[in-house]
């Protein structure tokens, strides 16, 4: 391990450029540590986004050496064997400035996928009893852990090809609600996630699953939606 990291950082908007910084290398240094060092010691004008620093909030995702990842829990030693880092804003999202992307479209697509829970009970009803070992609950054991970081969306080829595609995270969210016994909008949600911009556009490349920092499998969620929408279409319920 050498003493210095050579870090190329994206500066500006969509028509910006890379700027190179020398950053001292440390033990157990994360990519977010590197970005923070640049902003605090070398160039206070650098714009980037982070909050929790412990892999919970999903706000620090960036493209590192060409691959999207959460930077707070990505160690430099794992991604920069050659002492070079290239840090860019997430792909498939408009750049606001430097390393900050506009996440509106990403979250608007959650709404388009009917990602909002539609309750069937009121506060005066008893709590719903969900058996932890029941198949619908187990089907979403991992999927409900999504932190909305946008890594899967930035990694997805289909999003790059089709701007209307809802993307892995929104479809994964829909899958969790399809399996929620308390939810009352199954039919509308299946209709929303079907078709050319929905689950049927997925080519099962599995890049989302490979890149998800939470080790979730959006591809499996999308496959579940394909099965559910196909059954609904055959029954004439779509």
């Amino acid at each position: 391990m050498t003493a210095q990291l050579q870090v190329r950082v994206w500066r500006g908007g969509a028509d910006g450029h890379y700027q190179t910084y020398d950053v001292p290398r440390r033990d157990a240094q994360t990519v977010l540590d590197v970005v923070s060092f640049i902003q605090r010691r070398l160039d206070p004008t650098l714009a980037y986004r982070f909050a929790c620093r412990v892999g919970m909030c999903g706000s620090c995702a960036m493209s590192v050496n060409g691959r999207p990842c959460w930077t707070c829990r990505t160690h430099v030693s794992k991604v920069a064997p050659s002492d070079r880092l290239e840090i860019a804003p997430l792909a498939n999202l408009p750049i606001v400035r430097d390393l900050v992307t506009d996440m509106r479209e990403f979250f608007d697509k959650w709404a388009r996928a009917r990602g909002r829970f539609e309750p069937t009970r009121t506060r005066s009803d008893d709590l719903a009893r969900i058996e932890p070992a029941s198949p619908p609950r187990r089907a979403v054991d991992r999927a409900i852990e999504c932190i909305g970081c946008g890594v899967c969306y930035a990694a997805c080829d289909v999003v790059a090809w089709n701007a209307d595609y809802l993307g892995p995270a929104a479809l994964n969210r829909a899958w969790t609600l399809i399996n929620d016994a308390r939810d009352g909008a199954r039919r509308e949600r299946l209709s929303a996630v079907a078709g050319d911009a929905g689950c049927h556009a997925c080519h099962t490349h599995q890049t989302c699953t490979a890149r998800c920092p939470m080790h979730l499998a959006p591809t499996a969620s999308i496959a579940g939606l394909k099965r559910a929408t196909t059954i609904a279409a055959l029954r004439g319920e779509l």
Partner: protein
Amino acid sequence: MSNAAATRLWLAQRASAAVLALCVAVHLATMILAVRGGLSATEILNRTRGSSAWAAFYAVFVLSVSIHVPIGLRTVAGEWLAWRGRAADLTCLAVGIALLVLGALAIAAVTR
């Protein structure tokens, strides 16, 4: 196109792909066996002409191709050429009809 219609197209493409997997395997195996067995074109035509079994097999094959290809082309046109909408759909439909007609003519030529 509605999401329900797009879902049916997706389903039709998957179903036709499953049929094609079988048809292509039979077609290739038959071709290789016929050639390696030393059959001439005349001898092959003598076997296929008047055969309702071969006519039925290739009718299924051509029908599956005519369903599978235009749906796939529609996806390719949308993703690689950003060509979507009614004009793209109708063009792909025309390709499907052309494949169906050409395939039907080919079946008639070797089985009648």
